Each structure stands twice: as C-alpha cells, then as structure tokens.
C-alpha cells in the first residue's frame, strides 16, 4: 500500500494519476490523501509534467466529470476517480461513462451534482458591497464574502468575470479568494470573514423590494428552504426578513379576506378607452379557433 499525498486540486490528482497509471498501479495499492498544508498555498499554475507516450487517452467527458468531482470535499473522491480511470483505460470498460447506473459512476455523478449545485448557489447568493471607486480608472470597486461548501472558487469565477466585467470586484471565501481588475482574474489564499465589509447603502432598498414582492397569501416556507437553505441566510442581507414576514402573513391574509369588496367605478372619459370599446365591438370572437 502506498500513500499518495496531493494538493486538493484536479491538476494535482491528474498528474499523479497519469504517473500511477503508466506505472500500472492498481487502485487497491493506493491510499490517496489531501495534503492540507500545501492546500493553503494553492500554487496557481499547473505543474508541467513530462508526458510520456504511454499515457492512455480518456474521453473528454471524463475530464469534465473528474474536474468537477475533484472540487468536492469528500476524502474518497481521489480514489474513486482513479478507480474509474483504471476501469476506463486498463479495465476495458470504454463505455463506462454511458452506464449511469454503475455504482461507482453514480457516486462520482452525485459528487458532481453537489459541486454544480454549490457553484450555482455561489452565482446566486454572492452579495457585493460597494467599497469605493478607483480614482485613476473611475471603476467602482465591490467586495463580497461567501462560504461555499466545496472548493469551487475557480470553477465559479468565470461567470463573475463575464457578468461584472465593467467593475472591479473581489470575492472572499475561507478557502480561496478571487479578484478581477478589468484585465485578469487573480487568486489568493482564503481569509477571515472580518476582511469583508459589513454593509452596503443599497441593502435597505433591497430589503424593501424583498418585503414587497413577497405574497403573504401563498406561504410556502419549505419550498423556499429547499432552494435557499438556512446555511446561506447569515450572508444574505434580505434573510433577516424571513421570520417576520412568515409570522405576519396570517394576519395580513385575514385582513384581505375581511376587507369589504370594492364596487366597480365607472370608466373615466378617455379617448383611448373609447377607441377600445369600438374595437371590442368590431373584433370578431375568433378565440374558438
């Protein structure tokens, strides 16, 4: 049994796996482990590995799956990915990716699903706060704090780059931070929550919107929580309204139901309404067709 200590990145795993595969190592011989001391450093560049002619080819779809699953925090992911790689290449199971019911495939797909969901939630729930304007460029500068479940900062970053190209921003997380200055993305090690700003002048208006768009006559708290679990609430400026809005709903609905019905008011004099009345008289009812 050999222990393989790697930085928790897809690139580190790929380089190791390539070497092990060409050496003919079987999955049972390897004990994979995250090198967490290295993890903090997170060297940004991929290590160039001498490619030998013996490296077997794998379907591009496998690399996508592996890159996504690698971002998961489950310690068994490296071993599972290596087992899949072996079966795909040395095991003669070229069709493995087409068998979603396979137990090992299923497990890796579940990790991918969790990672993709985490990325999606990061795209949704990051909240930028304005910290100033760059005097030289005139660009507004924003900072956000986010706590992803998995190591997804790099996978999630390009979305923000495309969407917020016209402003400077940083997203800070406990694992890794990403910064955009209009020219390139930069990655730095994770920081503490206290490094991010606490508020933004617009948050009052945002809460006004959140409160007003909510319909108390259709309370569906569990539907909300399924999509916006409580773990995200502490970093969402609108979340402090959730409990009071729920608590106040029954009384608001009661009031609606008790309100006396309004009679119809006569139409005001208006040339457009007059025209509509004429059109209604002329338009044949073709709705049945």
């Amino acid at each position, binding site marked *: 049994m050999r222990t393989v200590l790697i930085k928790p990145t897809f690139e580190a795993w790929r380089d190791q796996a390539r070497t092990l595969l060409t050496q003919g190592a079987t999955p049972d011989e390897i004990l994979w482990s995250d090198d967490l001391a290295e993890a903090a450093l997170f060297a940004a560049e991929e290590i160039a590995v001498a490619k030998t002619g013996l490296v077997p080819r794998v379907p591009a779809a496998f690399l996508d799956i592996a890159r996504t699953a690698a971002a998961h925090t489950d310690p068994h992911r490296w071993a599972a990915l290596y087992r899949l790689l072996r079966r795909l290449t040395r095991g003669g199971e070229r069709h493995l990716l087409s068998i979603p019911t396979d137990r090992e495939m299923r497990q890796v797909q579940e990790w991918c699903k969790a990672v993709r969901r985490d990325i999606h939630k990061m795209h949704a729930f990051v909240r930028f706060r304005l910290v100033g304007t760059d005097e030289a460029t005139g660009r507004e500068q924003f900072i956000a704090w986010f706590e992803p479940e998995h190591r997804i900062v790099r996978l999630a970053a390009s979305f923000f780059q495309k*969407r917020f190209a016209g402003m400077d921003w940083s997203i800070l997380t406990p694992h890794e931070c990403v910064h955009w200055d209009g020219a390139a993305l930069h990655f730095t090690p994770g920081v503490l929550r206290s490094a991010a700003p606490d508020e933004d002048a617009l948050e009052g208006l945002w809460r006004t919107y959140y409160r007003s768009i909510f319909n108390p006559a*259709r309370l*569906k708290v569990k539907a909300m929580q*399924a999509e916006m679990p409580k773990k995200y609430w502490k970093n*969402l400026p609108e979340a402090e309204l*959730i409990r009071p809005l729920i608590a106040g709903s029954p009384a608001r609905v009661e009031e609606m139901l008790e309100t006396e*019905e309004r009679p119809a008011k006569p139409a005001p004099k208006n040339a457009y309404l007059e025209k509509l009345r004429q059109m209604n008289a002329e338009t044949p009812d073709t709705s049945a067709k």
Partner: protein
Amino acid sequence: MELQSKLEILADAAKYDASCASSGAARKDSRGGKGVGSTGGAGICHSYAPDGRCISLLKVLLTNACLYDCHYCINRRSSNVRRARFTPDEVVKLTLDFYKRNYIEGLFLSSGIIQSADYTMELVISVARTLREVHHFRGYIHLKTIPEASSALIEMAGRYADRISINIELPTQAGLDALAPEKNLARTQDAMGHIREKIDERRAETRKADTQKPPPFATGQSTQMLVGADASSDTSILQRADVLYGAYRLRRVYYSGFSPIPEPSKLLPIKPPPLVREHRLYQADWLLRFYEFKVGELTTSEAPNLDLALDPKLAWALRNRAAFPADVNRAPREILLRVPGLGVRNVDRILSARRYTRLRLADLLRLRVSMKKVLPFIIAADHTPTQLGLDGDDLRARFLPPPRQMDLDFGSPPSSADDLISVRNGEL
C-alpha cells in the same frame, strides 16, 4: 414621494405576475464592453421569498395607475390602492444598483395603462433603451407589452428585450368579458402571432452563416393565465395553453392561482382555489412540453378538471392500465416517459445504460427512482408486477396521500408534500 415608498408600492403591484424566468436568452456578456451584464446560461434565482417563489429579476411596474378595470387585479381603476409612478431614470438606476450587487440578473418591467397603450409602451421602452444604449447593460430584460400598442412599438420592445410577454389572463373571451372588459383574446393572440413572426425571422437570420449578425431581438415570449378567478375548467385552460404553445410558439405559459388581494372586487370569488390546482396545471403543462402527451389525454369529458390528489401522469396511468407494465430493458422512450415515477432525465439514463447492461431494481434505486410509484407499472430483470397490482381496485387508493394531509384548503399553511414541490419548475 420617496424612492423607497415607490419601490414598495410598485413591487407590491407587480408580484401577481408569476413569471420569473431569466433563461433562454441569447448569449452575451460584458467583456470588452463598458457596463455590466450577461445572459445565456440557465437562469439564476438570486433569492427566494417565503412564498417559495424565485427572485431573479427586479420585477416592478412603471406605474400602478391604470385605466383598465380587470377585477382580479389589485391595480384596476376601481381599487383604492395607493398609486405611484417611477420616472424611467429611477428604474434604470435601481436596476443597475441591484444588478451590480448581484441581487438580481435583470429587469422585468410592466406597467398599468395610462393615457393610451402607445404612450405607456413608449415609457416602458425608454427604460430598456436607456439601460442598453446609455449604460451598455447586457443583463436580462423582460418587457410586458400591450396587444393594442402599435406594431412598431412592439417590435422596438423586442429589440431591447430578451423576452416579451402579453398576459392572456383567462382562457376564453367570455371570461374576459366578465372580469376584464377592456381585454380581448383575439387581439392578444394577433399580437402574439406578430411577435412570433419577428422571433422566427430573427432566428432564421441568425442561422444564415453568410449574413452579418442580425440586430438583437427577444428570443422568446411567454404569458400568464389566471386559475380560479372564473369558472374555466382545467381542460379549457390546458387547451388554450396548447394553442399558445403550438400556433404561437410560446416559451412558457404561467399559471397563477388566484389569491386574495388587499383590494377585493365584488365580482370575484372570496374563496381562492387550492394552491395545489395551480401545481397540477404546471405538471400537466410539463407533460405537454416534455413528455409527449396530447392535451386530450390529460382530462376526460367526465372529469374536466385535473385530479387534485394525484399527479396527472399517475392519474393517466391509472386510467390506462392496459398500457402497462413497461419493460425498462425493452420499452421505447415514449412508453418509458409515460411510466409514473420516471422523469425525462432518468428515462434517458435508462436508455443509455441498457445498451450495456440488463437493468435491475437496484439500478433504478441508484437513480433515486421512487419504488413505490414505479413498481406496479414496470418490468425489470428481477421484477414483474403481480397482475393483481395493475388490476386491483386498490391501486388508486395506494397512491392517495393519507387523509390528514389532504387539507388543501387555503388559509392553513400548506402541509402536504405536494405543496412543497416548487411550483416554479413543475417537476413531476
């Protein structure tokens, strides 16, 4: 009036429009530009309110003053609701400020009708134009249009927007005559037909490789139908939806269960329909669009409304037991799609896997298929349903939720599992 008060009134006024979609737009982003914004991926719900609805767009009215008197609407002229009006610049600034903080991924702008359809349309368009041309905004814009507005204005709205919509509101003209006297179904459908032509033209031009990039145009249109405000049956609602999907190529029909409003009208039922009715309509809609069901299969002449207790696919299967069991190792895709408990994605997984392996129940379990639901309807390598299962009278009873959970009345917070499934995606 302060901006905050306006926002309060004009967001409250907009919340009865169920549409929240922000997907399906042409791919564009802010790289190399001067502003912010991107579209083209799956839509993002940036928040959820306790009503379970997704908040993806700043959804507001430009004004809630309105000449029309639609009795289900809080903004009708007979309502005593507080009125407010944004200036176009106020909406532009709010949109950009919210967008840059990642609260939203675009704007959904509608308006009460003031002075005339054209006057109102011009105001709405001016907001979108300023966002696109002055601020280089490349985020999502959904504009509500008015069927009676001039076709030039509707086309202009389409050039700035990613999506445009006209609410059909009720499935029949008789319903509109009673509750929304200014609205006309034929004119609405004519306007939708016009928009469809423009969308199709644009799509055809985009496909021609040798032409220059055509000017942008909205990639889809949607609409909303109210449920339970008039006596229309689910059959009539689904038939109208089917026409809109077929002849007018709508991206989405939204169903909005009528819910009490703070300014009730004398003409409307005080008791709203159960929320689950709206949910069943979304499920039926899903069957039409993704499961190859025909509209006539969803309801029967004896029962023109969907079964509230069972999802429409299961209800269909129980009415058509002779079509089962289906062999997961042999049955064609269109048959597997009819099996209660099998979604589109899992059907495709089954089709892929069975080329290499004989599927057993454990395989389906791994795909998280509900055994309780599928077992009576399928054959697998290690399973054949008992004849008794499919023929027995108790099969329907087996799928009914226990009676206590059947409290579908409005008022008490929803407690049944069915209500918890997001209405937004209408998943089966």
